[in-house]
């Protein structure tokens, strides 16, 4: 059994410890280099994963962790997000005396997510979940002098632990039914005795799991924490939460729910369709009336969760591939967008030290003049989120909606078609609030002169832009990747 495939996780764990220790030894001023260290570590892991085995398949620790295309794709997503977040944080937390803990926690969170990505056992899944969650609880409250940051952390913590409790409860039930915590074994059990599988107890268990994952995905009605937390926590952390830990829920759902649902052959199509539609509509409709951009982005990412969860409605290979693509795209777009907001916050603060809610729409007026690169990037992210080609967002939605349409035609089910149409109308509706911000950035006059955009931010944001447009212009390899990943589930 070669542990090379787990090298990234191992590396990052060690790196986290190293960062902590270094932080103890170093003096305040030189702590800034820790950011570069962690960035290097993340970059190394990305390279490593890309280097060997996007398509490897192996399992470890008594088959409790598995490495397969699906896990690798999501690991890649998590790593990329963490990377750009770290790069941006170099500026955001410059000269902060606690940045060593920050980077350590961020790395641990990443490890947690990666564990979830390749978890093959409910225990591993739970542990990974908790590792990621707890690190992010702390990160959300990292500005410990800032009440809203702390409030965000608190809400995140309470709802988070509630839902992990629910999840655990669900897992216990599943274990009780199947007598095993190993996911393949569970699936096997369901396949072999359908009677049990369709028992109401089992359904209850499933719903508990849905609750647990739905919390991370910010799926209505498990979304309540998201807007507050995204708004309150430091922008870089919001970026990590929205772009990274959100996807944790999806990969878990792909691994457990999809398989389980396929196995127990009860059709939750309608249920998930309703959830998805409610989620996307809710997100978009509420986003319209927001003035705080971070909050608007929060709601828009709820809406995006709605789109992605369409993949569960028709669990076809194509739909899951689409879901994965959209998840990947969303990671880049949303992550980048939050970082851009962070930069705006930086800009506003450099205008006046003690400015309140820096992410207010008004601060974006004339951004195209004040911070051209940021404005343009934000423009790209918004169009991508709205699904305008050529962009990652478009490719994702394209494949996803395509798969639903196909399913609708195949099953000759008109309501599926209606689902797609609603989804489409939603993504048209979303243009409204994106365009409003774009208008502020490019049409309204600036209320301040041009600023110098800090290099780390710019690098991070541009990475996201390149990713977003790159996937849009040359989606071929990514589509392949997604399809391979979807194949793993063998649906």
């Amino acid at each position: 059994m070669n542990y090379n495939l787990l090298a990234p996780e191992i590396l990052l764990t060690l790196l986290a410890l190293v960062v902590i220790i270094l932080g103890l030894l170093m003096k305040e001023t030189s702590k800034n280099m820790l950011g570069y260290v962690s960035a290097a570590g993340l970059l190394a892991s990305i390279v490593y994963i890309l280097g060997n085995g996007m398509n490897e398949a192996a399992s470890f620790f008594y088959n409790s962790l598995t490495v397969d295309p699906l896990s690798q794709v999501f690991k890649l997503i998590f790593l990329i997000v963490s990377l750009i977040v770290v790069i941006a944080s170099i500026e955001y937390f410059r000269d902060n005396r606690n940045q060593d803990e920050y980077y350590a926690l961020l790395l641990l969170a990443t490890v947690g997510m990666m564990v979830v990505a390749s978890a093959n056992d409910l225990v591993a899944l739970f542990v990974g979940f908790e590792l990621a969650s707890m690190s992010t609880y702390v990160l959300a409250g990292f500005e410990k002098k800032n009440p809203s940051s702390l409030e965000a952390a608190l809400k995140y913590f309470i709802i988070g632990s509630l839902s992990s409790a629910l999840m655990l409860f669900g897992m216990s039930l599943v274990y009780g039914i199947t007598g095993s915590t190993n996911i393949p074994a569970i699936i096997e059990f369901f396949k072999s005795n359908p009677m049990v599988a369709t028992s109401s107890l089992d359904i209850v268990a499933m719903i508990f799991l849905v609750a647990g994952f739905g919390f991370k995905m910010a799926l209505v009605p498990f979304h309540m924490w998201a807007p507050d937390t995204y708004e309150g926590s430091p922008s870089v952390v919001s970026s990590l939460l929205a772009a990274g830990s959100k996807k944790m829920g999806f990969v878990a759902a792909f691994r457990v729910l999809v398989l389980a649902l396929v196995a127990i052959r009860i059709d939750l199509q309608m249920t998930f369709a309703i959830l998805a539609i409610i989620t996307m509509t809710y997100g978009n409709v509420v986003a319209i009336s927001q003035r705080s951009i971070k909050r608007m982005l929060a709601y828009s990412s709820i809406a995006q969760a709605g789109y992605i969860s369409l993949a569960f409605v028709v669990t076809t290979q194509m739909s899951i591939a689409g879901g994965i693509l959209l998840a990947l795209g969303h990671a880049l777009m949303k992550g980048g967008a939050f970082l851009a907001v962070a930069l705006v916050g930086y800009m506003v603060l450099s205008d006046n030290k003690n400015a309140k809610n820096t992410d207010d729409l008004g601060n974006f007026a004339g951004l195209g003049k004040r911070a051209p690169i940021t404005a343009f990037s934000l423009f790209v992210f918004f169009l991508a989120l709205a699904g305008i080609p050529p962009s990652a967002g478009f490719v994702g939605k394209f494949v996803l909606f395509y798969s639903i349409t196909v399913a609708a035609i195949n099953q000759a089910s008109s309501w599926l078609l209606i689902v797609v149409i609603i989804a489409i109308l939603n993504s048209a509706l979303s243009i409204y609030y994106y365009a409003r911000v774009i208008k502020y950035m490019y049409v309204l006059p600036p209320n301040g002169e041009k600023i110098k955009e800090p290099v780390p931010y710019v690098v991070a944001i541009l990475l996201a832009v390149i990713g977003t447009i790159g996937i849009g212009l040359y989606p071929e390899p990514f589509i392949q990747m997604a399809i391979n990943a979807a194949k793993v589930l063998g649906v």
Partner: protein
Amino acid sequence: MAALISLMIAIPLIGAIITFLTRTREQARLVALLASGISLVISLIIFSRFDSSISTIQFGESYPWIASLGVSLKFGVDGIGMPLVLLSNIVIPLTVIFAWGETKEANRFYGLILLELVGVLGVFTSLDFFVFYIFWEIVLIPMYFLISIWGGPRKDYAAIKFFIYTHVASLVMLLAIFSLYFNAWTISGTPSFDMFYLLKNYSVIQSPLLKDAIFLALLFGFIVKMPAVPFHTWLPDAHVEAPTAGSVILAALLLKMGGYGLFRVILPLLPYSGSPAKLITLMAIIGVLSILYGTFLALAQRDLKKMVAYSSISHMGYVTLGAAALIPLSVSGAMYQQFSHGLITCVLFMSCGVIQHSAGTRIIGDLGGIAKHMPKLTFLMLAGFLASLGLPGMSGFIAEFLVLVNSYFTLPTFVILALFGIVFTAGYHLWAMQRAVFGTYNEKLGHIHDGANYEMASMGILILLIIFFGLNPNPVLNMMTTNAQQLLKFVALRGVIT
């Protein structure tokens, strides 16, 4: 010289990027003019080498792109696309010349205009549905900015309305494309977005219900762009608020995308659709409704520009009508209407622009007798209006004559209805001229000056073109007819029309 078309698309793109980077407006407009000029030259080369006696794709190019979805960059022109490519390349440079005096954020302004050129050229030449759709969407963005940055008082409302309205339409169209794509895929086993391939396989679809659904979705996507009643309300707002150059491009090129869709996509599908007869009637109704409705609303307008906007709606109605009639000459007449309306409407909107600019208002009632101070404009504007009301000797007449005469074979009732529109069309044009331009000079306007030379120049060129194509339609009409006949072979085969 294989890659002429991609060159023609690439140059404005590069030009646009350079324009965005330029510092002064002189540089910006110069670059814009050069880029669009070169593109025009290329299109003229293509046009001169174009063989109008064959209906197949010419100057075709193909490059692989997304293998797993079967998407590839296919470009090419035929009798349907060529005239519109030419039109786009004529209109854009003239727009740049007309807007030569633009001062507000010139580099962005001209850059966006060039982007529009890229978009429409892409739409008119791409033969891969995926690519087609991408260009179709890209066109929206520069127009959104043109309206919302350089627009009038209610520009926000207009811009967003325009964007969402047409975006919804294109998304619905996307659904239909999905279905075609999936259908073709299941048949052949290999994915492909090749336009003709998808259209060809439409006939294989079993359920007539699905066929009609696909057809209607596509139709919706196109007629909203055209726009046809009752999906037209975005147009007047967009036009009223947009800057002159924006309106010109919107009316002359963006609306044509819808018509192009009819010929490129709808007509090949029509004979194989579930219930052709019903759909033909539907299209005819939409066409005639647009003609009459547009006319009467134009009659009701106080704002000169809004009147012109509604006149566009009514003129585009002829396109739908001619397409629905399914007679080779009516279809080519409809195509010719696209081409000629593209030229004519430019003059109208430019006139509105000049008046707005020098008199400070476009409200017909507040104007009056401006001919006294604006003789040059009056001359060109009158010519444009006469062309627009279908005066013989101008290109508009040929188009409408062909449509009316030939549609009568299959849609007599609708033609008779459409004929009623003509009187009122003349009515609102002359009414506007009489009230706004002739009569005693309204002293409240103060001293107004005639249009600038560059404006007059571009309008003059357009008028000359209108007259030229009114006296000698053959250069473009022949290739249209060739393709129209080819299109309607299948109609005849299916014996749809009786």
